[in-house]
């Protein structure tokens, strides 16, 4: 035994005995706990807790400064009969659907253009992303100014081109306001679609295009039979990632119209803000926000299923 003790002492003469903490962190389960702790605390405190709090709030008649008492599903019931809420729901779906379709179509078109070789491509790509990175509220103000009925540069241009003869009240006309808001959303979202889809396009081997061309496919056929199917997985993910923020959009409408005229551009988020913060009806406001949840849940589930499917392959 004496000999073996000497041997093992020699063996570890160079490595000092480890502290208890070091030993603990060598166990990957404990290390994982330590590494995840800050994230779990922050997300728990400011996502999970407010979510639960929001659910509890939505079944009370709380107002600012008044804790409120339990009223059951009364808030949701009154929303059901609330015509403004119904308008907001309808607007939100129209807004999301129309904007997404246009963002995808235009974004794909732009991505295809950028996928060619031309001088100044890197510059073009860098500049094209500007609408996406510049703070939304600030660039939206530029649009609000461009849409101004009296001083509109858009009206001036259309008038000079002979396309219109009288002024267009972009944001003041209830029939036009939602369209105007969608235009700005599309403007802001197209760069994201274009750059993401471009990244997807660049993973497609150009030899496939050339092979299809040799097989006699016309450009449109090449796109439809080669590019599009290969791009579909990326497209799916891009759309799913963009649908949620579009659906829950707030700042754009808040700046452009504030939900008006006559609630023509009211969305879930702006209505929740109007009720919860504007009028101080916290319970009802929380209920409006939470009404978004089922839709968001569907998107998340689709997203998760899709990612899992991709990972399996």
């Amino acid at each position, binding site marked *: 035994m004496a*000999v*073996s003790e000497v*041997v*093992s002492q*020699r*063996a*570890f003469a*160079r*490595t000092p005995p*480890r502290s208890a903490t070091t030993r603990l962190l*060598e166990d990957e389960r404990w290390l994982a706990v330590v590494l995840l702790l800050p994230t779990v605390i922050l997300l728990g405190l400011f996502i999970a807790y407010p979510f639960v709090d929001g659910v509890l709030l939505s079944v009370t008649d709380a107002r600012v400064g008044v804790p409120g008492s339990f009223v059951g599903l009364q808030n949701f019931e009154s929303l059901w009969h609330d015509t403004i809420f119904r308008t907001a729901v309808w607007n939100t779906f129209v807004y999301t659907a129309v904007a997404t379709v246009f963002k995808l179509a235009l974004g794909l078109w732009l991505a295809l253009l950028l996928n060619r070789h031309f001088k100044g491509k890197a510059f073009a790509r860098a500049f094209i992303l500007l609408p996406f990175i510049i703070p939304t509220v600030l660039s939206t103000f530029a649009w609000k100014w461009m849409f101004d009925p009296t001083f509109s540069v858009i009206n001036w241009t259309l008038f000079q081109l002979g396309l219109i003869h009288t002024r267009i009240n972009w944001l003041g006309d209830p029939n036009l306001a939602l369209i105007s808001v969608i235009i700005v959303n599309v403007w802001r979202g197209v760069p994201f679609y274009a750059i993401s889809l471009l990244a997807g396009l660049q993973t497609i081997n150009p030899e496939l295009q050339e092979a299809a061309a040799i097989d006699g496919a016309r450009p449109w056929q090449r796109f439809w039979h080669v590019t599009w199917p290969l791009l579909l997985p990326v497209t799916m993910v891009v759309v799913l990632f963009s649908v949620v923020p579009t659906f829950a959009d707030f700042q754009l409408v808040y700046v452009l119209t504030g939900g008006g005229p006559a609630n023509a551009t009211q969305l879930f988020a702006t209505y929740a803000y109007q009720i919860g913060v504007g009028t101080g009806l916290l319970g009802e406001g929380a209920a409006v926000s939470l009404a978004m949840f089922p839709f968001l849940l569907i998107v998340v589930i689709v997203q998760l299923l899709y990612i899992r499917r991709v990972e399996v392959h």
Partner: protein
Amino acid sequence: MARVLIRNLNKIFNEVHAVKDVNLEIRDREFVVLVGPSGCGKTTTLRMVAGLETITSGEVLIGDTIVNELPPMDRDIAMVFQNYALYPHMSVYDNMAFGLKMRRFARAEIEQRVREAAGILGIENLLQRKPRQLSGGQRQRVALGRALVRHPQVFLFDEPLSNLDAKLRVQMRVELKKIHDRLGTTAIYVTHDQVEAMTLGDRVVVMKDGIVQQVGEPLDLYNAPANRFVAGFIGSPAMNFADVGLAVQEGAMLALADGIRLKLPPAIAERLRSHVGRQVTLGIRPEDLRVGPGNGADGCDFPAIVEVVERLGAQILLDVKVGSGTMVAAVEPSVKANVREQLRLAFDAERLHFFDRASGNAI
């Protein structure tokens, strides 16, 4: 330096029993090679010695210490990986110094050790480069140098040469051998290449399906394989096998198969006595076959039809048809043989191997 003792080692991944009851003693200063096809458990065994995999059951001792619960950093080992695992953001010098820095060695000592190892490996002029600026062979040397500077108790090698091209591999193999002869550090080396195993190992451990098949010095494995798997795995080209029946006629033992009728010498017959009337597997190495009739009356030859002739320069490989099976013979380069030619292949009966058909064990 230290010995490594592996006792009843087991590893189970989810449902897969990757290493089964492995017992090994690697003696102090010994170079032991674990060899086997992919998935045989050799790398898993090595990684358990390193501390990179948890041990399901059994013990690993380095020196006289059970290291099962010891993290890799405290095992005083060094390891060379297949893809070199050089830290891409560090210079060659820093790569080699990292292990010493972690152990808080004095700056001067680090410098001295790195220079020394770089000198042994001939990479002194690369010390300031980044790994991406090196060729495959140079990276390999740096990976080796990183292990050398540590002066560890045990070197572990996980297929360190398999990413090199054939010529470089032979060169590095020789160099590794020299370094080990010089330093004498205990080493465990994993490879799937039996040539590497034979040339490097003081002893070779052949594994298959997580089980040790045979442990021995290279020539023992070659001359006396313990079972059919080892016989087929060691040696290139691989041993020829033929299923034969054993029968006794007129007091002599015969090995019979389609196209083969061999009279076995008494010494071998004695060994096979208990298998008479049963099917056994006969094995003969290609290099033990020669063209021409057998010498004497012991009938140690059989007819064969040449199908392919591969001229390698130093020898000729004949792919031949024997009865309904095929065999390979490695013969002298002076032999003239043509495709579709019929000839006789002869051998010394002492060079025959026999295996039990059911168990595969040598008889």
